[in-house]
């Protein structure tokens, strides 16, 4: 019997909490618009190579050109296409945001769930550890860690080029952003671990978990079928709100010259370079700045909308 027959035999399928949340989200026009904006931005940035001029092509005769057919948003101080540079920069910024968030979620959910479900000594040790890490100046340590990992990845990339014959330019580009993923992801999971732990702790006291125990379900089944699925709402919300935070960190690091390096570029670097010409050519700052801020705005609005739709309390800050 397949699912379709099934629903015929047993009445209409119900609305899960997810589908209810989706209906609520759909009514929130701001959140929905934000979702589509983020999707548009992702698509634009990651298929930019197919329709944009080479962002690194220097054309000194055409510097500070206005908007034209060949240069949609004009050119910069070296005659490079601003639109193309902004989209390629966005690639790095978005990549850092999403990959580091994924890493942070992986660590945060595992540690938070383990801590909350095991309780007792395990919980005490893990949470004191989290407390300790919380009292560490985040950005400061990320910067130091970033510098350390950067050296390691540089060595590793040289090895990869030598032994596996990878393209040198590409490898060094990848090697340049990996430290950011790791440094941000390694320190960005703390809040999420706390959120998940609090969720698990309250779920553990819920009567349906007690009922599951009374029915003789294994600890594994209780944790993975009855507890963790119920923590997904806050996790999704928090993840959505973490991405813009990480993008901001990346920009800050790059702005200080401690993050992404040439030939890579990111929104942070474009804004830094643009600030030098602010008086005479403000578009150099304003265009990447707008892309950057609008994307962050959309991600934040989407997160807020998801929080309302999933009815998640206390999943911010």
């Amino acid at each position, binding site marked *: *019997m397949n699912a379709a027959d*099934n*629903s015929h*035999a*047993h*009445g*209409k*399928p*119900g*609305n*899960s*909490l997810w589908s*209810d949340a989706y209906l609520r989200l759909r009514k929130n026009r701001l959140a929905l618009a934000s979702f589509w904006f983020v999707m548009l931005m992702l698509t634009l940035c990651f298929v930019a190579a197919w329709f944009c001029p080479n962002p690194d092509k220097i054309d000194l005769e055409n510097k500070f050109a206005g908007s034209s057919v060949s240069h949609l948003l004009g050119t910069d101080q070296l005659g490079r296409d601003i639109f193309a540079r902004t989209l390629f920069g966005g690639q790095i910024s978005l990549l850092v945001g999403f990959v580091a968030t994924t890493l942070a979620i992986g660590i945060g959910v595992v540690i938070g769930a383990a801590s909350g479900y095991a309780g007792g000594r395990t919980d*005490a040790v893990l949470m004191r550890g989290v407390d300790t890490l919380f009292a560490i100046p985040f950005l400061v340590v990320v910067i130091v860690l970033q510098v350390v990992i950067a050296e390691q990845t540089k060595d590793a990339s040289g090895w990869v080029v030598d032994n596996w014959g990878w393209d040198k330019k590409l490898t060094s580009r990848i090697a340049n952003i990996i430290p950011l993923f790791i440094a941000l992801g390694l320190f960005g999971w703390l809040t999420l671990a706390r959120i998940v732990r609090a969720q698990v702790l309250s779920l553990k006291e*819920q*009567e*349906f978990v*007690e*009922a*599951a*125990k*009374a*029915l*003789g*379900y*294994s600890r594994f*089944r209780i944790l993975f*079928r*009855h507890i963790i*699925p*119920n923590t997904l709402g806050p996790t999704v919300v928090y993840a959505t709100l973490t991405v813009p935070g990480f993008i901001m960190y990346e920009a800050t690091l790059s702005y200080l010259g401690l993050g992404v390096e040439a030939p890579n570029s990111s929104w942070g670097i474009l804004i830094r370079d643009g600030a030098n010409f602010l008086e005479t050519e403000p578009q150099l700052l304003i265009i990447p700045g707008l892309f950057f801020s609008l994307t962050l705005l959309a991600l934040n609005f989407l997160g807020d909308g998801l929080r309302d739709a999933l009815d998640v309390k206390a999943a911010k800050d």
Partner: protein
Amino acid sequence: MSLLDIKNLKTYFHTRAGTTRAVDDVSFSIDKGEIVGVVGESGSGKSVTCHTLLGLLPQPPAKVEGGSVTFDGNDLLDLPSPLLRAIRGKRISMIFQDPMSCLNPYLTILDQVAEPILTHEDVTKDQAEGRAIEMMKKVGIRDAEKRARSYPHEFSGGMRQRAMIAMALVTNPDLILADEPTTALDVTVQARILRVLRDLRDDLGVGVIFVSHDLGVIAEVADRVVVMYKGKVVEQGSVESIFENPSHPYVKGLLACRPTFETKFRILPTVDDFLQTEEAPDGSLGLYERPDAEARLAELKRQIDTGGNPKESGQNESFLKVKDLRVHFTSGGGLLSKPHETVKAVDGVDLSISKGQTLGLVGESGCGKTTIGRAILRLVKLTAGSVVYDETNLADLPPSELLPYRKRMQIIFQDPYASLNPRLTIEQALIEPMKVHGLEPNRSARRDKVVELLEEVGLSVDHLLRYPHEFSGGQRQRLCVARSLAVEPEFLVCDECVSAMDVSVQAQVLNLLRELQEKRNLTYLFISHDLSVVKFMSDEIAVMRQGRIEEFGTATDIYENPQSDYTRELLDAVPRADF
């Protein structure tokens, strides 16, 4: 002229989902020195009526669509807000249901009790506080001078409710609106609070509108009664006429479906035995008496005699024996914190239950009755003692060997909203226990079994693919029962399993439990704070107090001839309708 006159009051809630007529054409009045009881089940509009009077509803979504509330020659609904504020808390004050959430946790009790005086009268702070302390003494807060500067969380539930009453009375109001003022309290505390309210009526001549879902409380405290159902007043009259001689079928049903100490029914009548509802094309609800109501009641009465009591015949070997059970919880004890504090939740309890019987476990909140239920199922850690089930001591079993017993013993919890995983469909929730215990050979057999179970608890197959939040509280409790039955248990712990329900739903669930017991020869441990319900369900009863068994005996013995003072106090405190 009456003190307050409500005429054709209509309060609707306008939400995206549509319009709810929470209060629909309600009229009643109250005189000086009179307690009017407004009674109804959840959603009847009794609280909304109360809040509408003082303009305390959030608008939107609420909107007063019509009617008038005359107080002292003014229509409260039309009064400009400064004038309404001058009445609120001065001439009409309110007592709310939950004294914990209704008192501000950040301010001292004294600060809050004195606040109405400082708001409405031109007095110094010292004078106001003096009067506040005076009033706190009057409502029975001992050592009021010393304790007045405590914060709400430092007071017990009963004391908090007294503080709330003192706060309402401190300005000598003419009228008090009491919204479920004793619902969150234990019976003995409730009895004392009711006494305070009656004394106020007699001594000061205040009028009280007393809103409650509990018919017993209303019978005990009210002079006149207004019965509400789905936003409408279905019947009103003196308390004797309503309780002795109700005329509306809903009121008849409500009174009949409530178990009392005198109830003899084997199966309780339900509201549906009396009332027939028909929705008119314009959406309004028509309420009619069932033509066959008399016959139905007669049939239930006949069952009292013919049903007999099959339990007393034989089967007396006890198959669950609890000996010297102790469960202690320790708190604190972290690094540098205060030394361990031990709470002796259960402190040396002996119990035994015979097969096919129901043992009632009754006691006030915090007496340890719930912990016993969980300890028997090994859901909490036992400190000492034995739980012998079918000649095996469960207390000694390692967790790995518990599984076969998990199949034989099940539990139903108080809160049906929290007892079902919100992310599983009903089908998934009911199939899971069979899977874990390897019952039924294959998927289709399991699915057939699920359908069978749903029918057994009175739900339909249409519900299979739904999620828990799409059901009402009563339906969810039925689902919990079905889930427990999926493993074919022989012993069920019912932990306050009808406490959160309206009486009409409670009757249905109690009937279901009783029918299942007879059909499947189940053994129950029935835990409740409600003495009437326990009496109705149980063969034998244990009265608990502070972690120990105070008294143990057959249901009739305990209720007719209580031995301990505490049991007697408990029984006396239960509000009853005897005139």
